[in-house]
Every structure is written in C-alpha cells, then in structure tokens.
C-alpha cells in the first residue's frame, strides 16, 4: 500500500469528512432559519415601497403598458417554446427571461398582472407624471392625471395639488361615515336586537305584562327615531363624499373618470424623492397595521386580525396562568410524591406533544356543542335557534388554547419551584410562616421568572397556532371586533380574525392570490416578529434566571 493511500485512509479514519458532514447539518438548520426570516422580511417589507412606474413598449402591442415590475423568472428555452407554440426560438439564447408587470386597472383593462418576455421589450421609460391611485375596489389605477373637478370647478394645471386636497377631504368624510356607522348606528342596532330578545324572553316566560311591553314599545319608537336621524346624517355625508370627480388617461389612450368616493390615495412615484418615498412607506405601513381589510382581504390592512389575535391571546393567558400555576403548585408542593404523581407528570409532558388539531376537535365537541349548547338553553333561550355560545367564538377559542398551552406553564412553573433550594423553603417554615405564607411570600416570588417564561412560551405557541382555531372560532372576515362600546363591551361569543388564519385564508382561499401575495408576506412577517420577540424574551428571562440560581446555590 502506498503512502497516499494510507494518508487517505488516515484522513477517513480521523473522521474529518464525517465531522464536516455533521457541520453541514448545522449549516442546513442555520441557513433554513436565516433564509426563511430573510425571505419573509424582504418580501413583506418590499411591498410598501412606492416602486417606480414604468412605461413599457412591447413588441406586437400598439399601446404601451404602464405599471410596476414585481417579479421575474428565467425559463429554459425549450420550456418557453412549449408554452408559446407560435414563437420562433432563434436568437434567444438558452434561457428566456420573463418579467411580471403589475398593470393594475383591473376594471378598465384586465388582467392586472402580465408576464412579459424580456426580449419583447422595445423601450422602457419612467414618465414623471405617472400616477398611481389606490381605490376602495378593483385595485390600483395606473395612468396620467388629466383634470380634477373639485367643488364644481375643473382644474387641469396643478391638478395633482387639487387631487391631493380632494383626497384629504374624502378621507375626512370617510372617517366621519365610519364613525357614524360603527358608532351610533351600530349601537342603535344592537339595542334594537336586545329589545327583540327581551320581548321574546318575556313571551317565553309566559305572556308579557302590559306595562313592560308598552315600555319596550316606547323605547323602540325612540330608537327608531334616532336611527332615522343618524341615517339621514349618514346619507348626507355619503352624498358629499361622491361630489367630486377626476379623470385619468390610461396607457392605452382611453380615459376613465374616478369618483373621489372610490379613491383612497394617489401618488406619483417617479417624482418622489427619498424622503417622500419614506413618508409614503411609513404611511402604507401604518395603513396596513391600522385599517380593516378590503376586497376579500386582499387589500387594506389587517387591524382586526391583530386585534383578534391579541384579544384571544390575552384571554387565554388570563385563563392559563392561574390554572397552570395552581396545577404545578399542587403537583410539586401539595400532592403526595409517588407513582401517581409521576404518572401525571408524564401525562402532562405528553400532552405538550398531542397534536393541536386534537385539541381543536375536543374544543369543538365539548366546549362549543356540549357546554355552549347547554349555556344557550339555560341562559339564552330567547335567541334560539340562532346559537349564542353554541357556536365557535372567542371564549371557546381561548379556552381551547388555554388547555393546549397549560402543560407549558405547568412544566415551566414546576421547574422553577424545583430549583428553589430546600434551605430557603425550610427557613421560611422554621421562622413560623404557614405553608400558604411560604408559598405566597417565598416560593411564588422566587419562581415568578419561571412562571413568566412559561406564560410567554404559552403565548408564543398560542399566537402561532391555527389548526385548532379553524374549528373553534376564527373566521376570514369578522364584521365586528370582539371588544366595542356596546353592552356588554367584551363579546365572548363573537367570532374573530386571527393573523395565522389570515395567512392561510388569503394565501390559499382567496380568488386573486397573485394580488394578495405581498400582503400575506407582510402578515407573516408581523406574526414571525411577534413570536420571535416573545420567544427571545422567554429565552433571556430563562438565562437570567439560571445565573441567579447559580449564585443562590453558590
């Protein structure tokens, strides 16, 4: 055997290549985490940037196209030729580049997204007066502003300034309309519904007494009058909103008139400086975070989903913290340590590994249909057959997730309690404190960081969980928030929206996935950020805790 062979064998035997293979596995894991975060971050954040609007002349088209580049891909030539049978492949090279242009104008000139072959692009320019208008319906419009009719006066010069002013006025009016609709009108409606139910309850109890019935009638009459007044105010605003019009020339030469009532925002990205773009970016981001969705969730914001997630998670933590802590204290401090407690501990550990959908099934069967159905029959017979609590809703979702996350809190709290040195507990008892006093003054305060860690981990898990929620309470579009100004303010029976479900729904059930994709990425980014922040907090807390106990033990 020659020396080179020996060396090679030695190299293999040293394990060096296998070590590298193991290192590669770590590399794969790290790249997967970083890659995912970067992908979501880039795609999610890029969406709000006001991209330059391009005027593209394409071979074989008379009129130019106006829009934003949003994507591109390279296709092997043979695949391209198969997809486009009529095209000659000569002189194209081995790969063909295709770009996706968002041309908007879904109502005027569909489709709103077009794949264009890079070699078909004849000229490309960015006209400085290119205008983008965001509408309440039908997506964006790309074109050039022609004239604006504001308060009966038509302007062609300085039209963009007038347009801005008109849009500001429209925004104010729209806010007022929203305030009336979600304020007084909604309140009156919910009052009327309460009256109807009250009447029915009286009827169920066996005949309404005359006095209370006439009282209800008077109340209803008063509400109807107030409703009429509010409605006339609303109509007034709505008419005012639709007063002004502007005209836009589209890339194909046709013009379209847009009512200010349909337009939300307008900008000319090709003239914007970096400051203006940043301001626009911030505004878009804010709208995304604070507005309700529009157009079957593919546009607008995700505020109700954020709100629903937060409400659900808060309610869940209110439920899970005391129960988790009590169970842990029981297991560690009060139960007799033995085979039974060991068994329970294994069961609790195992429950953390039971699929979340199983909890969803349990929640739907037990909480919603069994408990909810019983509550409806006992407390809300007047609303039947329409269910109040016998249908998926916020309370059941929170309860289900509380059950799902209670093992996390139990395990974490138990760990915290177990780490407290015996001497401290015994010292407290020796000084005459009762068991309860030792628990409240010594044990729980010392275990509080572990409890907190457990609760944070529970929250992080609950915030990202979707499968059980699909069964016990989320909906794609909730007409009302679970918390508002109408009695009883916190509506535990209402269905709610959720960030995770929003991602699933918009990404997979929406009619226009292409248009919705950036929003899904942005939503995913938000959810990931929330969960990472929560987890890192928990990890930091745990590390601090470990340091503290080390010093205690030392």
């Amino acid at each position, binding site marked *: 055997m020659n020396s080179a062979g020996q060396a090679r064998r030695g*190299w293999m035997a040293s*394990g*060096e*290549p*296998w*070590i*590298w*293979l*193991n*290192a*590669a*596995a*770590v*590399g*794969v*894991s790290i790249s*997967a*985490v970083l890659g*995912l975060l970067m*992908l979501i971050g880039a795609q999610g954040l890029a969406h709000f940037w006001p991209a330059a609007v391009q005027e593209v002349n394409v071979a074989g088209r008379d009129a130019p196209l106006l829009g934003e580049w949003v994507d591109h891909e390279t296709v*092997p030539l*043979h*695949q391209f030729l*198969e997809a486009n049978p009529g095209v000659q492949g000569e002189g194209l090279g081995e790969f063909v580049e295709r770009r996706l242009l968002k041309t908007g104008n879904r109502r005027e000139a569909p489709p709103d997204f077009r794949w264009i072959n890079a070699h078909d692009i004849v000229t490309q320019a960015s006209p400085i007066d290119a205008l983008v208008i965001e509408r309440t319906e039908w997506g964006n419009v790309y074109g050039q502003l022609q004239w604006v009719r504001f308060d009966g006066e038509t302007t062609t010069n300085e039209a963009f300034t007038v347009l801005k002013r008109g849009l500001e006025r429209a925004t104010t009016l729209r806010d007022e309309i929203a305030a009336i609709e979600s304020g007084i009108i909604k309140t009156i409606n919910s009052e009327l519904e309460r009256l109807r139910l009250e009447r029915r309850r009286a009827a169920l109890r066996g005949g309404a007494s005359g006095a209370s019935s006439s009282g209800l009638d008077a109340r209803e009459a008063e509400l109807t009058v107030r409703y009429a007044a509010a409605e006339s105010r609303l109509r007034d605003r709505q008419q005012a909103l639709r007063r002004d019009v502007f005209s836009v020339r589209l890339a194909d030469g046709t013009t379209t008139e847009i009512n200010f009532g349909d337009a939300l925002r307008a900008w000319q990205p090709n003239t914007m400086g970096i400051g203006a773009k940043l301001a626009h970016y911030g505004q878009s981001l804010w709208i995304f975070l604070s507005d309700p969705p529009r157009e079957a969730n593919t546009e607008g914001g995700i505020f109700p989903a954020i709100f629903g997630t937060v409400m659900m998670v808060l309610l869940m933590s209110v439920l899970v913290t005391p*129960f*988790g802590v*009590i*169970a842990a204290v*029981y297991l560690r401090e*009060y139960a007799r340590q033995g085979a039974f407690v060991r068994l*329970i501990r*294994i*069961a*609790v*550990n195992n*429950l953390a*590994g*039971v*699929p979340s*959908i*199983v909890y969803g*099934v349990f929640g739907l069967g037990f909480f919603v*249909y069994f408990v909810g159905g019983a509550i409806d029959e006992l407390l809300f017979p007047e609303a039947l057959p329409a269910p109040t609590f016998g249908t998926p809703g916020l309370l059941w979702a929170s309860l289900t997730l509380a059950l799902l996350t*209670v093992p996390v809190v139990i395990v974490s709290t138990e760990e915290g309690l177990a780490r407290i040195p015996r001497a401290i507990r015994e010292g407290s008892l020796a000084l005459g404190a*009762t*068991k309860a*006093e030792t*628990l*409240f003054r010594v044990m729980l305060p010392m275990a509080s960081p572990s409890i907190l860690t457990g609760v944070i981990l529970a929250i992080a898990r609950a915030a*990202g969980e*979707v*499968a059980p929620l699909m069964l016990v309470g989320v909906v794609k579009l909730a007409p009302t928030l679970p918390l508002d100004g109408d009695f009883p303010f916190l509506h535990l029976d209402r269905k709610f929206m959720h960030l995770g479900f929003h*991602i*699933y729904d918009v990404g*997979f059930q929406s009619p226009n996935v292409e248009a919705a*994709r950036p929003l899904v990425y942005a939503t*995913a980014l938000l959810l*990931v950020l929330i969960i*990472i922040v929560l987890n890192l907090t928990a*990890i930091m807390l745990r590390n601090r805790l470990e340091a503290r106990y080390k010093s205690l033990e030392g």
Partner: protein
Amino acid sequence: MKHAIGRLSPRRRGVNVVTTQVVRFGGAAVIAAIALIFFYLVWVVAPLFWPADVEPLAHHDRSGAAPVLVDIDDNSEIGLALSETGVVRFFDLETGAAITSEAISNTPILDAQRVFPGGNRYVVRTAAGLFFFDAAYAVSFPAGQRTVTPRVDWPFEREPLALTGTGSFDVHRTDSTVTIATLSAAEQLTLMSFTDAEPGYPLEFGRTYIHQLETAFDRVLFGARGQWLYLIADDGVIEVWDIRVPSAPQTAFRGRLVPEGHAMLALEPLVGRLSLLVADDEQRVTQWFMVRDEFGYRMVAARDFELDAAPLMLLAEARRKGFAVLDQDLTLELAHTTAHRITARAQLDTDGTPSVDVAALSPRADRLLLATGDTMWVYAIDNPHPDVSAAALWTKVWYEGYTEPVLSWQSSAADNAFEPKFSLTPLAFGTLKAAFYAMLFAMPVAIMGAIYTAYFMAPAMRRWVKPGIEVMAALPTVILGFLAGLWLAPLLEANLVGAMFTLATLPAAFMLFAWLWRFAPATIRRACDGWYGAIAVPVLAISIWLGFAAGPVLERLLFDGDAKAWMLAELELEFDQRNSLVVGIAMGLAVIPTIFSIAEEAIYGVPRHLINGSLALGATWWQTLVRVVLLTASPGIFSAVMIGMGRAVGETMIVLMATGNTAVMDLNIFQGMRTFSANIAVELPESEVGSTHYRVLFLAALVLFAITFVFNTVAELVRQRLRTRYGSL
C-alpha cells in the same frame, strides 16, 4: 408544628386552609380537564360501535278496510294507510288517533307504491289505470304549538292513465319526465314516457315503446339514474337493460340472482337503486349491483348476510344503504351493506299474529310500521350508526359500482343515494407518508446537527445556535406551510431536476469540500476549529446554486428536456406541484428543532469522564464519538426521534397548505396525500353534529391522540431511564 399552628391568628389559619383547598381543588380540576380530553373523545366515538335497539312503541286497531300500502312521514310522527277500498287515512303514529282521511278512488285499489326516486309521491293502480297522489305535511304554529296537518295533494290531473299491461309496473321520475314500465301477460314490456305537468293538468303523453321479451318476467324495476331497467323472474333470473335509448334498449346483463334450484323469497332495491337485495331460501340476503370492467357490464354479488330465519320481507332505508329484514318467525334484523354489519336482531311481538300484510320503515329509519290482521304495530328503532364497522374503517370495502373492493375516503354526500366511503386507511397511509418523508429529511439533519453542536462546536457559537434553533421551533407552522405551498412548491416544480440533483449530491459536495479543506493553511484550520457549522453556510449556498444551475443541463441530457413527461412515460409517476417532497422539506423544518434539542441535550449530557477516559486510552475524537458518546446517548436520540415523529404525525397546517389533500395511496414522492389532521381540519366544521361522519372524524382525532400519546410516553420513559443511568455513571 401542631402547637405552632394552634397559636396562629384565625386570619392566618384561614388563609392557610383556604389556600390548601384551592390548590388541591384547582390542581385536581386541571388534571381532570386534561383527562377529560381522552374520555370525551371516547364518549363521542363509542356510539359508532353500539348495537341498534328495537322497542315496541304502540299498537292500535286499524279502522277501515285492509291496507295495501302504509308509510310514515319525514318526521316519524304521522302514519299513512291506503286501504284497498281507496281511502287514505292519516293517523298519529303513537296513539293511533285518526287525523284525516280522504277517499281517493271509487274503484278498488290493486296495488300501490312509492314513486322512485324518493319523496312523498305515490302511484296507485286500479282497474281503470294508474294515478298519482302526494302526501303533504303542512307545518304551522297556531298559538306557538307546532302542528302538522297532513293532506292528499294531486300532482297532476286525477284522471287515471290507462295501462296496457296488467303485470308488474314501475315508475321513474326525473325533473321533467315520468316514465312508466309495465309487463303484460303477452311477454311484452311497455315503456311510456310523459312530460311532467303542473298540478291539475294532465301528464303530457310522450312516446310509447313496446318490446317483446324472450322469456316471461314477473317484476320490473327502474335502476339508478334512469340508465338501468331490471327485469326479474320469480325463480331469480334477471335481465338488466340499458334504456338510455328507450327505443332500442340494450341487454347489458343476463343471469341468476339465486342459484338454480333455489327460490327467491324477497327482492328490494337499495336506496338509489344501484343495488338489489335478494333474499333466498338459504336464510341469506345478497347484495347485487352492476359494475363495468374491461369485459363490459356485469352484475356482481358483492356481499352476503346470513340471517337467523327464512326471510319474509325486505325493507330498504330511504336515506342510508341500510335495510331491514323481517323473517318468517317475525324476527327483525337490521343490516347495513357498506359496513357489512347486522346491528340488531329483535323478536317482534305481534300477539301471535303469524303474518304481516304490509310494512314500512320511516324515512329516518327510526320507526317501523306493520299491518297485521286488524292491528297496526309501531316499533321504535334506535340505529344511529349502522354504516360503520371496524372492518369497513380499516379494510377494503366493495362499494356500489366498483369492480373490486377498495380503500377509499369520500365522505361528502351529494344526495341520499351516495354511498359514503369512510375508510381511515388512506388517511393513516397519508399521515405516515407525510411523516416518513419529513423524518427522512429531518432525522439526519437534526441528529447530525445535534452531534456537531454538542460535541464539536465552539462554545461561543453554541450560545448562538441553541437559541436560534429554539426560535425555529417556535416558527408558526402556518408560515412554514404558506412558504411551502406558495414559494417552495413552484420553485421546486420549475427546478425539479436541479433540486433533486442538489439533494442527492449535497453530502458528496461537503465531502469534497472536506477533502479540499485539508489543503487549507494549518493556522486557518486551527482558528476555524469548532466553527465548521458557520463555514458550512456559504458552502451550502454555493452547492445549492451550482446544483440548481446544473438542473436544466441535466434535464436536457437525461430526460429529453422535460423530466415530468419523462417520469410519466418511463416510470408512470405522476407529478403534483404540491407533493410529498415539499411536505417533507417543510415539515422536516418544523420537526428538526424538536429532534435537535432533545438529541443535543442527550449527547451533551454524556458524562465527561467517559469521554476523557476514551481519549486517554488513545481513541481519536471521532472514535470516541462513535463508540462511546453516541452509544451512551442512543436512548436519548431514540426518544428525540419518537417525539419528532409524534409531531410530524399530528402537524396540520403544513400538510393542509403544501399538498393537494387528495386521499391517494401511493408512495410516490411527487404526489400529495391527505392526512388525519388535514382531513379533520377540512371536514369537521362542515359535518353535522352527531352524524356518523362527525363521529368518524372524532375517531380520527382519537387515533391521532393515541398514536402521539404512545410515541411520547415511550420517549419519555426512555428518557427517564437514561437520566437515571447518567446519574449512576
């Protein structure tokens, strides 16, 4: 101690007692709630396997002449009896109290039957011909009390339609036509078609077709969807005609429903009339239906039911593929064809009356009405879930119209005639397939990553990698699923060859890099010791880039430029965009952190003196790892794999979003699957509470619960043993 407590102030003592009680109660309650999950699932599932129950409910004297037809309304409240003198009588099913009666014919009734398919329309034959009537049940709420008022309605003009034949007849009704088939003594079959009319107007006559038969038949029955016409002789000879072209029917099948020399005692079509139930003189009921295979149409006997006594009468359920057999000794047997299960055998007590004239099952199959002599007997049947059995859930079932028994999951029903297919096997297969591909990717990556992190990695790097992996564990699976479905799946489809090439050659690429690394300057090598994991990231990126770039070239060289077409032609492998490969990678990413953390803990926890001893004896680091560390940590690694497996089995969102969710049974990596969890998430919100479908979905959840519970318990026990062993070392 006692003395000390005795001197406590009442307030302090009260707090102590209350705390103890609250903690005891609360702790027990939480643990009970956790146990409740299991028991509640069992409680919902259990009724699936309970036997049915038949109880006598009432009997009352029949008033009027002997009935030729009895029936029960949709809500099982009102009975209907048509007497041979032509009077329709509605009565309360429980009390027998008459509600209304109406004479509908002046001439005596020869026979009467329900019109196929379904509904409350009846066809009656008198000497004058055929006429139709409807039983209408109007519901009103006078004074808040629900009241049902039955009456007879006339769908068409009352004038009877003259019939040519006097033998057996049958009526088939579609949205716009009514077709009547009659057998005549002259061995002729007459098909008459009419156009459906408004109430009060005569049926508009269409065409009449007369076909000469070669042999005599005693019974004629329309079959499913107007395609088939069954002609049956009393000795069991059957001819099945394809009458889609009524002027020129084709004989699709000719055969015998009972063996030669045996008698056919009863015959009844199952709901939807795809199947015929035949009772013969060997105490047996056989289900027959038409199938189409490469030899054309034929009728097959799919399954037999052994009875306790000779059958007298067969009654098919109106909404399920179930039926009741009334035996000659008046035993009632309830059976279901799909489940191949007899759910009840009950001796009916009819006061010694030996025979039954007419009988009816209610549309909900919860009441049985018998007319014997002068008495009407009503029985309550509690038979909520005959359609499921252990065999039907897990083994192959021969469904109506299929050429052979299959495993299939198709739960949604378009109408009552649809046979629901509740086979859990394809779902179990899909679940395991998804978990298998996920583990195929996750296991090597996670375990090898754990080995490097625990054993070779520089502590400074480990401090960052561990929380990084924990963050990965916390990534919501909905995000992984969304990226898998909308980003990874199209990416892999576009770069199929490149991706497969990269996956296959990645280990080789790293070996190559390791070989090249030998030639790096020693100082650099020493400085990078423990940081290989970080160096691997750019190497990985370059390898993937190179692999993807090589894809199109390889595709042209090896697969004629189209790998998908090549696979379909050469290997008969179909390609779905959302397939097992995508699921494997995405779910693998979800499982990696779980396995990684537990395995890393196990390896890191191997007592230091074992390693030092091995090294001191002259073993290299690698030898020590393989022969000492991994061996010692292997139970921990095993438990990590079990827990990872448990997570992969139950994961919902990734599978839901990254596969097509079709319940195919195929190991092909380029096809999708339907798992238990995704199936539950899709179907449970739409299933009716308490229905068989609902309970079967709960059963799926229970199976999932049981599988993961077993996995986790085994893993936990192994881990606990490991801990004691480390402790003793």
